[in-house]
């Protein structure tokens, strides 16, 4: 099922520049309903308080990392169905395996292009 352009998307990254980049790309791709969170805990609070259709998360963050957020989402009955795309500079094989085992929907290595982000979204929402 193609992605609903009105779905609420949560971009999680401790770097404001990265949040803005991803938000901008999403807007250009036709998704204007994008919110931001600074770390995993902030994201989890927002996810529990509202209804989101997609999460794009960084890996390395203070307070709660991306992989911890992913595990928390998959362990939560209300949130476990939300697709999570991990965007990270951690290109190590072990990290990818860890993310797959934790239930990641797809994985992008920084730096990435808008085309790659779109391609990954298409795969997630096909």
């Amino acid at each position, binding site marked *: 099922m193609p992605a609903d352009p009105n779905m609420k998307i949560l971009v999680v990254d401790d770097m404001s520049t990265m949040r803005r980049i991803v938000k901008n790309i999403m807007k250009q791709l036709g998704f204007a309903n994008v919110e931001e969170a600074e770390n995993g805990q902030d994201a989890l609070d927002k996810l529990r308080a509202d209804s989101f259709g997609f999460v794009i998360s960084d890996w390395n963050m203070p307070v709660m990392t991306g992989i911890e957020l992913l595990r928390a989402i998959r362990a939560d009955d209300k949130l476990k169905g939300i697709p999570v795309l991990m965007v990270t500079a951690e290109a190590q094989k072990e990290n990818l395996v860890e993310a797959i085992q934790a239930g990641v929907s797809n994985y992008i290595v920084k*730096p990435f292009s808008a085309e790659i982000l779109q391609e990954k979204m298409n795969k997630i929402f096909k």
Partner: protein
Amino acid sequence: MLNGSPKLYDELGELARYLETAMRKMADVGAPMVAGSAQLPQATAHLLDLNKMTEAGTMEVMRLTEIIQDNRAMAAKEFASVVSTLEAVDCKTLAARLGKTASELAQDDKHLMDIMTALSFQDLVAQRVKKLVTIVEDVQCKLVELVVVFGLKQESATPETQGKAGEMLKQLEASKSTAIKQDLADELLSEFGFK
């Protein structure tokens, strides 16, 4: 207790001499070590400044790019509206020309998006700087431990002025106070009669 053990006495003497030499050598490197440990917090602060500077620059490029993107989106809508109006009044050639121009301009949308994504370099730089800061802080802790353990703290040590590192640090520090903004430069220029 050492009576009757001349060999042990000799060995203890040798050990004492060795320890004294070692302490003297440690004292020789004491000043640079004290200086080094004192310089590291400043170096760390400058590294963190790099993050702030690149973040500010990146944000400004993003802000301007977003303005251009919004303006282009509005222009594209206008183009489409004019093209359909021209088609409605049977100005097909003009409409086609305008349509072609609009699609050529639309290619810049991709370039603008590429500019935005290229700015992710800032995140990668910031992450590496953070790691470097952690390493520098760790080295600083170890240096301080050495300074304390070997009692190397010297009142006369002048940390900022020692070695190349000290010189570079001085330059970095000086740039904080000597780097002026354009408005201040203009103010100074006008004071000297520049218009």
